[in-house]
């Protein structure tokens, strides 16, 4: 039985497990699941850039950081309610992405990869150096308030759990719709052959930028949730390793959203499960990843084909298809 055929049972199973998990989990594992949800959010948004458009972007932690710091600054200095800062955190990350991506968007593959790694480092070092006297240097920002939703204060692990996974659910729906549209197709054309895409009328630069900006917006919003959950953020939470993990989650996933979820569970959950092996755990994890890449080089679950409603009957009509356009004035 192929993994692709098991999609529906896996999706349904995953949804049920996610719903009932807080009933059976202890606080520690719930915390791990919140983490997994955050990584899933980040990886789903990176999947638009990397999986759909094929842009090798390894700097997603930078946008995550911009979002988290936007929330932290607005909340601690200006006392904005945390959830109100979420759209602004998204916008800040999106604007930042627009500014940094514009000059580098035409770079290809490995070159772009290196520049995006540079972006994460620049952001981290800037935060360490207390940009504009707002980010608090290496200590970061303390005392971020708990979010309230309709007067309901979110502070317990289980509440964050549902907040994060609801956001994941909404993202899944929105990104799925995006995939099944001219926007999603345009990104796929660019991934397949950008010169052909441009030659057929797709504004390649604009769509690459749009993918970047959208992904950054989402990462920024994930930053808000992260800041609210941790109540303390520091530059080291947004280092290069974080970017690599998000990147690896997407690569391992194969490009489908279900793949991203499973991959996030494997990447974040597996090392936790292996804790009893102490020092050997990263070694075992590394071998597991290598085995994956050998066993499934295409990733866990590549995206399905899009579906189209095509009027089948009309293609099998008796008339010569060319009659549709035939102009009787010109005879052979």
């Amino acid at each position, binding site marked *: 039985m192929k993994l692709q055929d098991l999609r529906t049972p896996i999706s349904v199973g995953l949804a049920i497990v996610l719903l009932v998990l807080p009933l059976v989990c202890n606080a520690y594992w719930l915390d791990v699941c919140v983490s997994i949800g955050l990584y899933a959010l980040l990886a789903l948004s990176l999947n638009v850039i990397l999986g759909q458009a094929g842009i090798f972007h390894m700097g997603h932690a930078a946008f995550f950081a911009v979002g988290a710091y936007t929330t932290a600054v607005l909340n601690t200095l200006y006392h904005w309610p945390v959830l109100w800062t979420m759209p602004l955190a998204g916008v800040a990350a999106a604007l930042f992405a627009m500014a940094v991506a514009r000059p580098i968007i035409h770079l290809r593959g490995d070159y772009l990869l290196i520049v995006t790694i540079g972006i994460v480092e620049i952001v981290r070092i800037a935060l360490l150096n207390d940009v504009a006297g707002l980010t608090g240097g290496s200590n970061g920002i303390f005392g971020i308030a708990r979010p309230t939703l309709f007067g309901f204060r979110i502070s317990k692990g289980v509440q964050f759990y549902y907040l994060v996974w609801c956001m994941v659910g909404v993202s899944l729906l929105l990104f799925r719709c995006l995939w099944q549209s001219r926007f999603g197709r345009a990104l796929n054309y660019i991934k397949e052959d950008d010169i052909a895409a441009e030659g057929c009328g797709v504004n390649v630069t604009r769509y690459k930028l749009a993918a970047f900006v959208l992904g950054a917006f989402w990462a920024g919003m994930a930053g808000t949730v992260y800041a609210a959950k941790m109540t303390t953020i520091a530059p080291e939470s947004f280092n290069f390793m974080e970017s690599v993990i998000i990147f690896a989650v997407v690569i391992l996933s194969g490009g489908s959203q279900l793949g991203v979820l499973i991959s996030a569970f494997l990447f974040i959950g597996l090392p936790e499960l292996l804790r009893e092996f102490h020092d050997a755990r990263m070694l075992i994890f590394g071998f597991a990843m290598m085995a994956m890449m050998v066993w499934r080089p295409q990733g866990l679950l590549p995206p399905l084909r899009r579906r189209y409603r095509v009027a089948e009957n009309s*293609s099998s009509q008796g008339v010569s298809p060319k009659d549709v356009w035939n102009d009787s004035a*010109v005879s052979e």
Partner: protein
Amino acid sequence: MTLLCLNDVSKIFGGLIAINDLSFNVEEGSIVGLIGPNGAGKTTVFNCITGNYTPETGSIFFDSKPIAGLPPHRIVELGIARTFQTIRLFGRLPVLENVLAGRHCRMKAGILSCMLHTAPQRREEREAVARCMEELRFVGLADNYSEPAGGLSYGNQRLLEIARALASDPRLIILDEPAGGMNDQETAALVDTIRHIRNRGITVLLIEHDMRLVMKICEKLIVLEHGAMIAQGKPEDVRRNPDVIEAYLGADDAQW
């Protein structure tokens, strides 16, 4: 009416003059052939028209608007569609989605309507699919709509590129060696298809090595050699032109 006009266009590649002060016109509603020996600069001319290259000198007008130096997607929006000499389909994507690529620039749904699948977005999508299926029927590939494009025969891949170009509602279609890789039967069908394209009111500019095909369908020929035009006019006049005969002497494809 003159649809396309090249004025003293030159293109230089690191000292090699690929096109040298080339000027010609394409009248609306005609089928024009651009011919010449290998390496004469034909594909380079096409790439200048479609925005893939920016000419060093000269100007190109489409429907009286200057287009030299515009990015390719803008030129497609203005109404020039092309096919590639080396087939450039999205091989792993289904045939229908390849045609939808050509339709893309005539669709309007923005990122938000795409994420929310709004009613206008869904209507536009339905119309685009119907229109692209019509183009597939036009080239005879409707039954293959769900297959990956890379699995089609070369002949059919060329037809698919034509369908993709037509889906963008062009006023001018530019075909770079459309019969390349086709057998005699497919070539004969292609001649029909090209005539039908013109009958839809679309002007055709084509490069072709198969001289029988060119002589059969073109109303005007432009002959290039070493990047310069050596003759132009009706096919029967061009084939008697001594310069043209000399340029083609000894060449493999001098099968008039």
